[in-house]
């Protein structure tokens, strides 16, 4: 019986070109210069990072640009120990939400510079509130991964 039911293996590929528009373009240009840029809402005084073209609460168009800190605090994180089709990079990876100093909300990125062998080794290095700092790739492409990852700051500093 088992053998009677065949399957058909298939990969669907779809090509895309995403328009960045003016706001994201300026943000990516910032990354090329190792700067993290945000936009500030004049109405609710929140700084959004990555930069956004409008405030989702006040629906005000945003054009007040600020360079934000490259350091912040870990809000939450997770450990992906197993590769899956289409994973960004290669397992293991640690995905993190960082609250950059002086901003609201959280910046989604990766954690590096620590032992990623298992969730337990990560747990030893990372907790809510751990201070982290952006580590940049040598070569910049105007891409979110121009920031290689966020690494915990050594406690001595």
């Amino acid at each position, binding site marked *: 019986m088992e053998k*009677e*039911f*065949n*399957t*058909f*293996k*298939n*990969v*669907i*590929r*779809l*090509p*895309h*070109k*995403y*328009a*960045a*528009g*003016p706001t*994201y*373009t*300026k943000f*990516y240009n910032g990354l090329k210069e190792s700067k993290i840029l945000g936009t500030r809402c004049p109405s609710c005084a929140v700084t959004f990072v990555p930069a956004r073209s409008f405030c989702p609460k006040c629906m005000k168009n945003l054009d007040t640009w600020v360079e934000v800190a490259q350091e912040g605090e870990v809000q939450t994180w997770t450990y992906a120990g197993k590769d899956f*089709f*289409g994973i960004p990079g290669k397992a293991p990876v640690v995905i993190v939400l960082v609250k950059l100093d002086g901003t609201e909300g959280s910046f989604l990125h990766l954690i590096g510079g620590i032992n990623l062998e298992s969730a337990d080794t990560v747990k030893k290095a990372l907790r809510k509130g751990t201070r982290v700092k952006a580590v940049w790739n040598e070569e910049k492409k*105007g891409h979110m991964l121009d920031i290689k990852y966020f690494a915990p700051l050594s406690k001595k500093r």
Partner: protein
Amino acid sequence: MEMKHEDYYILEDQVSIPYENAYGLTWTRFFEGLKSEKIFGSRCGKCNRVLVPMRSYCPRCFIEIDDTIEVSQEGAIVAWVLTEYEYFGMPTKPPFIGALIRLDGTDCEFVHLVGGIDLSNPDQVRKTVKNGMKVRAVWKEEKKGHILDIKYFEPVK
């Protein structure tokens, strides 16, 4: 400095997603049939229609079908189109003729290719291919249990 539209970034990407689609019992049998140069259809016990490819149920009577019959490999063209353009990931390379073919003794149209004729000149094709024209299945040497085990339907001389 004001950025111009042309300077806004475009992020190029390709989404690839893998699938494994199950044939199930009915379609497994249909494709087994193709391997031995047979086209199987299903007769609905209620409306008496012969549907091809095989179905496990009748889409009008909503009853299960288990009456499998081998249908004719000849039929008549009901509608056709000559395709001249190509797009990303197109499964069949142009030029080709896609056609609705009413196989003799069946009660729906079978979608496949019409071939075995010169496709280089559309006006010539128009003179050759007519609705109502008799066509016959031409098989590939090597069978894979795939709908393209039938190479195409060629005009019956």
